[in-house]
Structure formats: structure tokens, C-alpha cells
């Protein structure tokens, strides 16, 4: 037991005191990117000039409860939840008072890939490399609707959603995470039962722990190819069904000890078409029938500590062609099973979180795609490669430890390891019938047909004010697409993909 050093320095105006230090950033001296950074700093200065004590001028949930981000987000690092934040979510976002339910979010990023020379198309393989870009923006609708109903919904704009034949990017908006809830709580000194229902569009988006597939990766991802090796695009646990589908789940949390959630997901259509709003028919995941999702977690809180041990899973049948759902035999079957654990130590001014997830994903291909001749040939141009698999199994291990001090300065170390079956259908590089080496997926082409990828991400971040987070991630690869060296057949090594990623994330 000791007096926490620096605890008291967390003052209302401390964000302003820090505002000058960023202007000495080394990157600002780089002439090629000075201009975007000037704009970045201008925005930063503007934000810092806003009255920091005005609790009514921050995102929707803050307006609703009047509390600072740190009440619900561990160390203020959104979106990771504290025990109270989990309770706020499980009780249907209904704590507080109805307020203007609209918030916005904008992300500027900078990606720099270690080696951009081993490419026959650097301009295409590393779009916007070494440049500050406006990466994404979201409109968030969230908050209390009635005593029992609340919602969280996000529409995201991607300025780099598509590229025309002249190389010009075009923006696009579509529905992002949506979670609409009904919840009630029966509590006395003898028992505590929270139960509710969630209509949502992404399996596990309703989950209150941040080891959930929908939440563990949190920085919005830029689309340009220079960002394809950033941490957010490195292996994370996920569900084969993906997002923008329509789900309904029921959940219960008993005595802050046991959490159970069961639900089913189907295609977003008709009344639930808003779950995939903005996506055209060909881009909308089509599921066969109702596909089960489950979640079980044990929670314990003692002193400043909290620990969760859980498991989750889903079985989904996804049509191979979203435009042809006539034959149930043309579906991929994804069987996902994960075990996860999260530990938190939260005692101002310290916030420590450790997360570990192990996910096993089995992918059964439709008969028409299984046991098919390989698209590539051997080095002599002969069709000797194995036929495609009928089933692939991947295993993802993700661990992360983060620490935040004074809800202002933070860092994290993440480790990732993906292993899986080798499948010639997953090759995106190889020899053609003339024995010539070709590739079809740019700098991420896969010669081995094996997905094995492993590496680590080191991150430092700073929250000068509670609704702005500036972060730097460095992701290093020891293996990529099944190999440490020459994974694409064109001499590209795993470490060539090491990427420096800077982001500035504003939620207002």
C-alpha cells in the first residue's frame, strides 16, 4: 500500500498543459508529410482549445451519464470496458438521462511499411504509404431510449472504399456495429440478475468483454494497401460469418458471476435490412437459415482486480455466392470456437489489462469447391499440386497486455500467432502452366497455401484530452503466409511487412 505517485496530477486542465509538446514531433520535420501534419496539429490545437470541463460536449454516452470516459473505459482507452462499463452495456445503455444521441468519430492515420522495394507494383501494393490520410469517420447513434431500451449504432464512412481504373479513390458509407437492446435488472441484497435481448449485426458485438472478436481489435482500419500489415489486419480471433448480418440474442448475468448469451444470426434483409445498410446485394453476407451463437463467461471481482474466463462459438453456413442462394449445398460451413480470458487491475491512476484468446476456426467448403484441381502448377508447369482441401482448420492465439497511467499515457504489447492447414486453394502465388511465377494478391501473396503468421505489436498512446487518442504501433512479423522468408515467391520476407502505424482518433 502506498500513495499512488502522480495520482493527483490528473487535473481537469492537464490536457491543456500538454498541448505544446506534440508540436516538437520528429515527423513534423519531414517535408513530404509536413502539410498533412500541420492540418493534424491545427485540428489538435482546436480540440485542445475547447473547454475541457464541459461534460456536455463529449460523446453521446457521456452526455447521458455526465461521466468521463474513464468511468466506463479502462484507463479511458475506448472501447475497453471497466466493470461499470460492462454493467452499463448489459443494462441496455439505460443508465443516466436521455440526451442528444449523436456522436462522431474521425481517424487520421499514417502507415509506413518496412520494405516497399520488393514489389513489381509499389504504387498499388503500398497505397498512401508514408503519408497521413484521413482514414475513416463514423457517425454514432447511442443512448437510452426508455427505462429498458437503449441502442448503440454506428455508420462508418471509408474515403478509400473503392478505386476506379484511373486510380482515384471513392468513398462509401455503410452500417457498422449495431446493438439495440432491451434489458432489465432484478437486484436485491440477496441476488442480482441482469437479463436482456440484443438485436445486433455482428456476432459478439453484444459482448461486454473486450476479448470478444468484435471488440479486441479496436483501431478503425484504413483501406489503402499500405495498411494491410498493421496490427489491426494481423490475425485476430473472428467469426467466419463476419458482420453485417442480422442477429438476435438473449443474455443473462447472474450475481456478477455467470454470463450466458445465446442467439441466432441470419441474413440481413426485410425488416432487418438496416443491419447491412449501405451494402449492395452482392456484398451482403447471405446465411442459410438461423445460425447459432453462444457465449459463456465466469467473472470475479475482488478489490481492484477483475477476472473473466469464457468461451464462445458460432456455427454458420454462408452462401458461396451472395447472389445465388438457391442451393443450400453451395454454403461454406464455419465452426468457430474460442476460449478467452481477461484480467483487469483498475485503481486510479493505474489501469492494467491482460487479454488472451485462443480461437479455433474450422471451414468446411461446399462440395463444388472441395477437392478441386489447384489453380497453380509446379515449377515445371505440370499440374502436380494437390487438390484443394474439403476442410481447413485455423488456430489463432492473441495476447495483449496494456497499461494506462492517469488515463493519459498508455502502452501495450500484443502477440499474435496464426497456424492452419495448408490448402492449394489458398495460394495466391505460384507457377502458371508455363512454369512462370505469378502472384495475384500483391505484397500479401501466398506461395505456400499455408496461413501461418506470427508477430508482435508494440504500442504507445497518449490521450491529451479524453476524447482524443494519439497512438503509435509498430508491428513486427516473424512469419507471414506460412514462411519467414520469400513467402510470395518473389523474395518478400515476413519482416519486410513490419509496419509503423500512427493514428489520431477523435470521438466527439
Amino acid at each position, binding site marked *: 500500500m502506498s500513495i499512488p505517485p502522480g*495520482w493527483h496530477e490528473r487535473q481537469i486542465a492537464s490536457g491543456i498543459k500538454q498541448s505544446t509538446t506534440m508540436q516538437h514531433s520528429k515527423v513534423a520535420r519531414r517535408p513530404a508529410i509536413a502539410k498533412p501534419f500541420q492540418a493534424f496539429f491545427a485540428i489538435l490545437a482546436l480540440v485542445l482549445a475547447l473547454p475541457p470541463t464541459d461534460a456536455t460536449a463529449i460523446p453521446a454516452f457521456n452526455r447521458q451519464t*455526465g*461521466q468521463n470516459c474513464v468511468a466506463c473505459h479502462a484507463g479511458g482507452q475506448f472501447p475497453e470496458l471497466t466493470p461499470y462499463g460492462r454493467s452499463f452495456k448489459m*443494462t441496455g445503455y439505460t443508465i443516466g438521462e436521455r440526451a442528444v444521441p449523436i456522436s462522431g468519430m474521425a481517424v487520421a492515420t499514417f502507415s509506413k511499411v518496412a520494405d516497399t522495394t520488393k514489389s513489381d507494383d509499389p504504387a498499388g501494393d503500398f497505397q498512401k504509404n508514408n503519408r497521413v490520410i484521413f482514414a475513416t469517420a463514423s457517425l454514432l447513434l447511442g443512448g437510452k*431510449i426508455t*427505462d429498458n*431500451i437503449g441502442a448503440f449504432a454506428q455508420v462508418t464512412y471509408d474515403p478509400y472504399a473503392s478505386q476506379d481504373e484511373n486510380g482515384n479513390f471513392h468513398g462509401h458509407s455503410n452500417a457498422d456495429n449495431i446493438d439495440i437492446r432491451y434489458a432489465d435488472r432484478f437486484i436485491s441484497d440477496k441476488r442480482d440478475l441482469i437479463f436482456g435481448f440484443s438485436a445486433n449485426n455482428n456476432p459478439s458485438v453484444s459482448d461486454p468483454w473486450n476479448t470478444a472478436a468484435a471488440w479486441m481489435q479496436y483501431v478503425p482500419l484504413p483501406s489503402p494497401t499500405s495498411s494491410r500489415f498493421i496490427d489491426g489486419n494481423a490475425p485476430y480471433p473472428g467469426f467466419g460469418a463476419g458482420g453485417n448480418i442480422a442477429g438476435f440474442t438473449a443474455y443473462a448475468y447472474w450475481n456478477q458471476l455467470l454470463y450466458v448469451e445465446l442467439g441466432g444470426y441470419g441474413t440481413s434483409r426485410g425488416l432487418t435490412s438496416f443491419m447491412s445498410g449501405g451494402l449492395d446485394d452482392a456484398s451482403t453476407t447471405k446465411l442459410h437459415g438461423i445460425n447459432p451463437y453462444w457465449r459463456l463467461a465466469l467473472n470475479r471481482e475482488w478489490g481492484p482486480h477483475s477476472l473473466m474466463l469464457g468461451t464462445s462459438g458460432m456455427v454458420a453456413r454462408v452462401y458461396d455466392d451472395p447472389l445465388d442462394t438457391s442451393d443450400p449445398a453451395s454454403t461454406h460451413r464455419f465452426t468457430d470456437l474460442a476460449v478467452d480470458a481477461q484480467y483487469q487491475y483498475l485503481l486510479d491512476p493505474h489501469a492494467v489489462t491482460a487479454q488472451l484468446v485462443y480461437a479455433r476456426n474450422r471451414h468446411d467448403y461446399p462440395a463444388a469447391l472441395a477437392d478441386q484441381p489447384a489453380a497453380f502448377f509446379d515449377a515445371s508447369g505440370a499440374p502436380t499440386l494437390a487438390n484443394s482441401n474439403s476442410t481447413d482448420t485455423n488456430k489463432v492465439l492473441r495476447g495483449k497486455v496494456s497499461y494506462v497511467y492517469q488515463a493519459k499515457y498508455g502502452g501495450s504489447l500484443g502477440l499474435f500467432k496464426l497456424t492452419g492447414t495448408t490448402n492449394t486453394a489458398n495460394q495466391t502465388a505460384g507457377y502458371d502452366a508455363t512454369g512462370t511465377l505469378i502472384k495475384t494478391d500483391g505484397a500479401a501473396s501466398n506461395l505456400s497455401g499455408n496461413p501461418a503468421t506470427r508477430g508482435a505489436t508494440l504500442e504507445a498512446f497518449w490521450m491529451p484530452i479524453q476524447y482524443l487518442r494519439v497512438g503509435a504501433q509498430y508491428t513486427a512479423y516473424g512469419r507471414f503466409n506460412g514462411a519467414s522468408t520469400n513467402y510470395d515467391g518473389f523474395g518478400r520476407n515476413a519482416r519486410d511487412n513490419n509496419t509503423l502505424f500512427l493514428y489520431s482518433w477523435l470521438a466527439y
Partner: protein
Amino acid sequence: MKPATLALVVAASALATGCANPERSRDLSNPAVSATTMAQQVCSNCHGMTGTAESPNFPNLAAQTEPYFVAQLSGFRSRARRDPPGFEYMWGLSRSLSDEQIKGLAAYYAGQTPVPQRIEGDSTRFEAGKALFVSGVADKGVPACSTCHGAEGKGNETFPRLAGQHADYLMKQLLVFQRTDERPEGSIMKTVAHDLTAQNIQDVAAYLQAMPSL
């Protein structure tokens, strides 16, 4: 979204908006929500169902004196109390509470039974803390805590109960008093805490957390 879907969502929302559930509401701006409901549905998230907070980040409220409790919650509501946890956690939650709700919450917590806390520290620390609590520090003019807070640390009117409070919370608040003017209602403590050393603060906080088990 198709017009029919939109209409359905709007209609459902409008219908649902009329449905209040004051017995189990978490609405902090509805004067019809009772203090007991509020304590159970909202306050319990951090302060525990019966006013004993699992996390030392949040103070125990069980058996707190009513006048002190009312003064604090009113201070958060008016933003007069502005220590970091105050503005981070409590300003917003208290901003729309009625006087009646604040009094009701005070009565709810005053009526709860305190739970003995973990004993953390060694006997040397407890002895030093006890000496400070019972006798003060004569050569520095620090008065005995027990003078105002009672021989058993149970508090008295606007002087809060300290027995069984989280040591971490007590230490942080003593620093607030000592170094800032963020708790104007407790300005008397600025004088009292002025000459306390870090060791004094740790000792007395450890002793108070362990009360009444010691």
C-alpha cells in the same frame, strides 16, 4: 432502410418511449424514481449493493452519516466538490438528482451494515496509525482524528464515518485536502492534513480501513 422498416422502428420507439419502469429504472433525471431503486440499479455498480464497494477505487458508503452524505452528493451536483473522482464519476450522475432523492440515498446508505475490511499492513503501521487517530501529532499541531470522527471512527453529523473505509480512498482524499482546494466543504481538513507526512497518511489510512476489526 426501407420506408416501412423506418416507420416500424420509429413507431416502436415512440411506443416504447412512453413506457417508464420506475420500480427498476436507471433514469437519473426522473424524480419519481425512488432512492432505493437508484441505489440498487445505479449506485450499486460501484459502491456495492449494501454500500460496501468491492473496488477500493470507490468509497464504502454503508453507515455513512446522513449529513455528510447529503453534503457530498449536493457538492457533486453543484460541482463544488471537484477532486478527480468527483468530476470524473459523480458530477454527471448527481446533476439531476432532487433534494429528496439525495436525502433518500443518504438514509439508504446510513441504514446499511458496514462489512469489516481486509487488514492490510503490519502491527507497527497500525500502532502508528492508531496513535495519530487517538492523539494526533502534538508537536505539529495535528489534532486527533477521533476528536471529530468519534472514538470508533463512526463519524458525527457532517464529520464522516472513517472506520472500514478503503485505505486507498482515504489516502487520496487526504492528499486532496492537503494539496488542493477541491473540497471546499472540507476546508477544515486542509489545516488538519497540512503537516501530515506520506508515512502518517499511509499509517492512519491502514488503521482506519482495519477498524473496527483491530
